[in-house]
């Protein structure tokens, strides 16, 4: 399992742990968080009940590290970035992506978090198979903004 992946949904315990500031390090005055949830979409009269995520684990590791390095290089006020994505089954309403950026001030925290999410969508080798209420499934692609 890559260090940026968790099996199944991202739970409150993990997010609470990630939200805690590093011990003795209080130079980040602003933290921006993005949480992605599985939507209960309807597709041709069928309702999404879950997404089965699959990933190229080793490449997720290398690409996530590159994304974090790119954000840190592009935003000189950013202090830390956390990135967690689910693999395996995540039910509708459950959390599959958690991105957190801490910076000295709010503007870079918000902008860097937004850019990190876009880079994750574009570059992280993860695929989703939507599971419907009739037990059928379909591979889906990300749509542009």
């Amino acid at each position, binding site marked *: 399992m890559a260090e940026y992946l968790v099996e199944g949904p991202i739970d409150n315990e993990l997010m609470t742990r990630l939200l805690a500031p590093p011990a003795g390090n209080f130079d980040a005055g602003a933290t921006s968080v993005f949480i*992605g949830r599985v939507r209960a979409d309807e597709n041709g009269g069928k309702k999404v009940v879950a997404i089965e*995520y*699959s*990933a*190229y684990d*080793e*490449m997720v590791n*290398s690409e996530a590290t590159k994304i974090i390095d790119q954000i840190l290089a592009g935003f000189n006020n950013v202090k830390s970035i956390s990135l967690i*994505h689910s693999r395996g089954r995540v039910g509708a309403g459950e959390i*599959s*992506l958690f991105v957190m950026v801490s910076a000295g001030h709010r503007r870079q925290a918000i902008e860097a978090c937004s850019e990190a*999410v876009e880079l*994750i*969508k*574009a*570059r*992280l*080798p*993860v*695929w*989703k*198979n939507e599971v419907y209420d009739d037990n059928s499934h379909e*591979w*889906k*692609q*990300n749509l542009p903004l």
Partner: protein
Amino acid sequence: MEVKVLFFGVLADVAGTSVRHYGDVGSTDRLMIRIQDDFPEFIHYNFRTSVNREIVNGDVLLNDGDEVAFMPPFAGG
């Protein structure tokens, strides 16, 4: 020489497996010819290719032990 080939997303369904090994393929183009022989439906899908976890474009020479992945458009988030 032998390379490890990984299939992801819908391509794993097309191939009926997520991993295969191919011998005597000197480049990604030659590997693709072998794969299309094995799975003619491959031509109907968009995908990117990586060699040793780096995206590649065009024909790339392959060495013994390389890991090649065929990846449909990413869908994280």
